[in-house]
């Protein structure tokens, strides 16, 4: 009994060195990709391209960081992309109607958070398996967004608002600062707070977590709400960078976010992984897609490559863990 409790509560600390090794491997992989791309393409090392990679990676990271917490509990959120689309369209409408970016940002975050909370209710109160519940939510959100937009495009937002996604501060794009902030918050939350530790415990062994007094349902609600809110944040960055909102902007976002989480070493079976790993995962994926772009490979190839990467990442993860045991 004592052993079970210890296993459930302690894994992040005792795995820290193993986590560090896993992250180190992934950093090496990212550097290797950079080296290859630097040789293959003259424009890869240009400042403009590197900033572009960082900005692109930060967008994937915002969605993937919240998703990481969900996957840590052995769940999955397939609705994040559709959530970004709905939140962006609603936030865009609010900004147009009221002229207030602040109100729009709040609405976008709230919309994302509410959708996440609904996911959490389906998983905890209705006990629907998370991948099916959030997959159903994906289509509900898709339908709502297309119905709400009715084929229209919103565009033209205040210049101040557009700075969030496309502005620079001391030579770095503003999304990169946001990335650093949320990387810090996410890492601190997961590794250094009791709630974070409880999330690891739930993923490692839900029964042991419940028996040791962790309010599992409430933590799961929190995790899905955070995932939704981060999708809301991503929707604001998207809106401000594209300076427009359309119903279909979320369609190509979910698979890359899941890919980033899995490349980053978070296990689909819960309890293992870090937010920092997800950041590296987002970076690796963006580097690969950016490299294809620089080498003039048609964008049509991107879903194919992302799909292969998702499967490879899960397979590698399962293989290394099997060997470690």
């Amino acid at each position, binding site marked *: 009994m004592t052993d079970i409790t210890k296993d459930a509560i302690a894994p992040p600390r005792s795995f820290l060195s193993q986590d560090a090794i896993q992250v180190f491997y992934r950093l090496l992989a990212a550097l290797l990709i950079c080296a290859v791309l630097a040789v293959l393409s003259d424009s890869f090392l240009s400042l403009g391209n590197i900033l572009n990679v960082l900005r692109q990676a930060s967008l994937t990271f915002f969605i993937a960081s919240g998703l990481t917490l969900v996957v840590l509990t052995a769940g999955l959120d397939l609705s994040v992309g559709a959530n970004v689309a709905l939140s962006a369209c609603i936030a865009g409408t609010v900004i147009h109607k009221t002229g207030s970016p602040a109100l729009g940002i709040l609405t976008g975050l709230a919309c994302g958070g509410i959708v996440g909370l609904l996911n959490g209710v389906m998983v905890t109160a209705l006990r629907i398996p998370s991948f099916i519940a959030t997959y159903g939510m994906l289509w509900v959100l*898709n339908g709502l967004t297309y119905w709400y937009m009715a084929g229209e495009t919103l565009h033209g937002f205040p210049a101040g608002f557009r700075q969030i996604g496309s502005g620079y501060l001391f030579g770095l794009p503003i999304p990169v600062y946001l990335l650093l902030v949320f990387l810090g918050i996410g890492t601190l939350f997961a590794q250094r707070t009791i709630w974070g530790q409880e999330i690891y415990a739930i993923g490692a062994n839900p029964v042991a977590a419940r028996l040791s007094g962790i309010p599992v349902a409430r933590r799961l609600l929190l995790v899905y709400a955070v995932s939704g809110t981060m999708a809301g944040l991503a929707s604001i960055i998207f809106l401000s960078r594209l300076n427009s909102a359309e119903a279909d902007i979320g369609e190509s976002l979910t698979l890359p976010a899941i890919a980033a989480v899995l490349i980053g070493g978070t296990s689909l079976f819960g309890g293992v992984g870090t937010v920092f790993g997800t950041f590296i995962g987002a970076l690796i994926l963006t580097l690969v897609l950016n490299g294809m772009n620089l080498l003039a490979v048609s964008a049509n190839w991107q879903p194919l490559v992302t799909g292969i990467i998702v499967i490879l990442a899960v397979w590698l993860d399962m293989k290394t863990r099997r060997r470690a045991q």
Partner: protein
Amino acid sequence: MREAAVVSQPNPLQRIPGVAIVLVLLIALFGAIAPGFLSVANLSNVLVQSTILTMLALPMTLIIMTEGLDLSMGAVLTLTSLCVAIVSLATQSMLLGLGAGLLVGAAFGTVNGWLVAILGIPPFVATLGTLGMAQGLSLIVSDGQSVVGIPHSVRDIYSATLLGVPVPIVMALVTYAGFHTLLYHTRFGTYIFALGGNREALRYAGLSPNRLLIAVYAIGGAMAGIAGLLMTARMNSGHPTAGLGLEFDAIAAVAVGGTSFERGNGWLLGTLLGVISVGVLRNGLNLISLPSSVQVASVGVLVIIALFLDGLRSRA
């Protein structure tokens, strides 16, 4: 022990009400509010339009019975539909087109089964990965454009009749008969029940659960190939996004039809009624001029309700 045996038996009596009530309620609702819904022309239209979904939902039932899932079916259907269009355009032969669609579909299904059975990747992630791959390949082979000008022999399949019955309906009925025989009257069908219910027993009986699992996913892929022919015939072209999301309607039909996601027992007739329910829902909403976006959302709500009820029943 005795209890376990009772639980694992399919219990149609307990299920018939669920999906039948849904279907009757939907028909009554749209009969009352949608003008022209109950006309013979419209009802036969609902049935013909449900044929493609039938071909996906029946194999999806088998896959879900193995506690699996195939999210790639819609994307694979899109790809096979394009293959049918491209090959039949190049060779002017419907059969060669169908052969190409079957081959590509079965190949994708086999890869799905291999990822799930041999590599042990959770089905929803494995098939999410192959969804991306099939979607990418669709864009690549079509270069993002529609494939038009396909031969008459392909087009005619959707509009032709056999003894007064539309050919797509004949194909769907034959498919249903095939799956019914396969699941309830062959040893393979018994093994499928065991794949979801008791995989260890298969191993003790000297059978390879992995090979059976691959076969189940391969059947799903092959059916997406046949459905691809119908899709191309119906649209009179191949389109790189034609079937995206159809897997969700298939999952909805299976869930509404009373097949359980966690206990490995499935019911094919329930799935068929589920397919018609989804078809009626979409057709009815269409008749009262609600856009397809609302139809998509309402199918999502239907699935969540069905799963919630399924969860309630499993706890009762």
